[in-house]
């Protein structure tokens, strides 16, 4: 059958001009989806002078909804007042699928709720991990449960993240797909990539003229690029840098990024005099990351929690040997010959770094081949393709059997018919789903949903659909579905 193309709305608080992982993820997926012939609009809140409607390259249309911002990241939860505007946008863009990103973005949560009320298909992508111990995460988990208990499909960026989400929101695992992040591998080339042929022959020979080849006594440079926050494990870093340098005096550190922990690092540098060994660059923009990375041989990633860890993929793609803590989804991201894993402990981190340095010195790792391997592993077009499959699945364009991979027969055994394929939009079914969310929370959620539905009816009456004129479409690309990658 001919491939259907969809009108998709990406709803998230985090989007350009603010830099970040989620932002670039949304942007890349959107542009690749547009390449595949879909129509994508992004709905986010207004940044300081960015109100209104903008177009990005490749025809991504961005709605910067003017709303109260509590601070730079998240917009104020304007529970229902966002609905009329949201509905207007959805109608004028003729949206079929609403795709929310980031469980912390209230805009996304509201968008998904309203979208369900309006009877649109919804997909949710979870970018982050949440523990169960902290008091704060209890609330967020309840909220997530509220939102996700009616979403058609969920996308997680790693299997760990999938397990986490399934537990948090009490979901059917089959509703959760794992689609990793990717990177634009052209932007993360090794230093002298174009000159060096990507054939494996180059790696052989005892001293190939690669930048990463190390003589016995030329310094090893370790790069750290991360926002300097506690959960990025900067304390570990601060603790282990002096010891690493003590054990391997011929190493340099390049630390890029800014944050509250920067002061601790500086103090460490001053306390044991390391000004000539450790270089702190401060914040670097995303397009400069590659230039910083290629200055080093090892990428050190001491994070304490990480859903996916795009940055280590980028580092590997830049031909760096990656030393990282085995937390979150990180162990799934890279093959073992590119990485050295460490426990989130100071001693183990020092140990692992030592191993990495030793391996580099002995030329046991062919970092020059990393780039091509990573290029094969992760590409946004592939991500977009898999995302598109999710869309097809939820809008019933491919059969449940194919999508969920089991016969509806035995699925009937455990009564999942309501969720199989498409979720029914009937208010009563939705209320059923919400009601199961908890003793008190369930009732509260039901109340919210009912109010939302009433507001929806009011909107239908006050701003009738025929009064809303549809926006002009960007010229669709014509994409022949070629099954490469």
């Amino acid at each position, binding site marked *: 059958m001919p491939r259907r193309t969809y009108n998709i709305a990406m709803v998230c608080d985090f989007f350009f001009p603010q830099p970040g992982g989620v932002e670039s993820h949304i942007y890349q997926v959107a542009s690749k989806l547009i390449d595949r012939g879909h129509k994508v609009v992004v709905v986010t809140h207004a940044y300081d002078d960015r109100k*209104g409607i903008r177009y990005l390259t490749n025809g991504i249309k961005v*709605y910067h909804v003017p709303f109260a911002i509590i601070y730079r990241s998240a917009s104020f939860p304007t529970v229902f007042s966002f609905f009329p*505007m949201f509905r207007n946008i959805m109608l004028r863009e003729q949206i079929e699928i609403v795709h929310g990103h980031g469980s912390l973005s209230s805009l996304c949560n509201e968008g998904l709720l309203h979208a369900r009320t309006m009877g649109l298909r919804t997909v949710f992508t979870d970018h982050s991990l949440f523990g169960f111990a902290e008091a704060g995460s209890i609330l967020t988990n309840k909220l997530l449960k509220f939102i996700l208990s009616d979403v058609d499909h969920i996308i997680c960026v790693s299997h760990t993240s999938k397990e986490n989400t399934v537990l948090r929101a009490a979901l059917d695992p089959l509703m959760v797909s794992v689609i990793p992040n990717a990177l634009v591998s052209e932007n993360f080339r090794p230093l002298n990539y174009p000159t060096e042929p990507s054939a494996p022959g180059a790696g052989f020979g005892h001293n190939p003229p690669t930048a990463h080849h190390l003589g016995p006594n030329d310094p090893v440079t370790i790069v750290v690029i991360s926002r300097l926050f506690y959960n990025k494990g900067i304390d570990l870093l601060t603790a282990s840098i002096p010891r690493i340098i003590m054990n391997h005096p011929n190493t340099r550190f390049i630390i890029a990024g800014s944050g509250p922990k920067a002061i601790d690092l500086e103090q460490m540098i001053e306390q044991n005099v390391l000004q000539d060994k450790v270089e702190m660059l401060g914040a670097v923009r995303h397009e400069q990351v590659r230039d910083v990375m290629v200055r080093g041989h090892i990428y050190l990633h001491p994070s304490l929690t990480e859903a996916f860890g795009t940055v280590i993929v980028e580092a590997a793609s830049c031909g760096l040997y990656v030393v990282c803590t085995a937390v979150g989804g990180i162990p799934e991201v890279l093959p073992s010959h590119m990485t050295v894993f460490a426990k989130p402990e100071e001693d183990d981190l020092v140990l692992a770094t030592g191993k990495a340095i030793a391996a580099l010195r002995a030329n046991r790792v062919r970092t020059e081949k990393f780039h091509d391997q990573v290029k094969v592993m992760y590409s946004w077009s592939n991500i977009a393709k898999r995302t598109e499959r999710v869309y097809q699945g939820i809008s019933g364009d491919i059969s449940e059997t194919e999508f969920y991979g089991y016969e509806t027969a035995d699925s009937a055994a455990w009564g999942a018919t309501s969720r199989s394929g498409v979720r029914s939009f009937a208010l009563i079914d939705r209320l059923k789903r919400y009601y199961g969310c908890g003793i008190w929370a369930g009732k509260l959620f039901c109340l919210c949903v009912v109010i939302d539905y009433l507001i929806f009816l009011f909107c239908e009456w006050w*701003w009738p659909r025929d009064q809303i*004129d549809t926006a*002009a479409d960007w010229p669709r690309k014509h994409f022949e579905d070629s099954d490469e990658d």
Partner: protein
Amino acid sequence: MLTTAPHLHIRRPSPTTTEFTVSTLPPQTLPLRLLLAVVNLLRLLLGITVLLVLYAKWSLYSPYTAPASPPEALSLASLANALQHVLDSAPGRLAQRAAAGTPAWALGPAALAALYAAVRRVHAAESLLVLRGLGIQTSSSGATVLGAAATRFIPTEKIQDVLINEAFRGFEVRHYLIVVVDGEEDVVVVFPKLLPRRDVVERVWRGVRGCLFDVKPRPKDDDGQARGNGRRTNGKI
């Protein structure tokens, strides 16, 4: 039922001169005319009444008393005399009673509101006049019947672009036509008050480009426009 949704009316006596008028005035039918006449009459009466009441209020406090002898015509005194006569009439006494009854702090705002209602325009009309070789002139009728239409003329060589943009307004997203003026910070919004719907705006847009730059509107231009407007202007109304 006095007004309708804004609709477009085009006058082009010659191919090089076009005037696009968007107004909320419904097509003139007899009942409508009658209705309008009645409404205007009522407003007139309202205005007169308010003025009368105000004068009564004033005359309550003013020491001025009408002179016994009839003053010569066409003088302030005669005017005051006439007003006195009006006040002595039945509606005048009623007005006096009303004035005496209401306190000043209540009377002032009420009178202002009533006067505003009396002079408010019923139909808004905004127009765009395109003269090839001269430029574009936007004009929008004032809020009250007293105020004249505010016009803005933009010579052709200062017109950088004419394009359709989208922006949030209230709870909805509207299309609107803007003129980008060379070297000015703010774009000029055409039909700022009425903000007609997309089809109207697009017709006007094609008409303007056809009349001003003598380009035959092609469908591709629309996308060109769309691409154009989006990338740069942050649509604030």
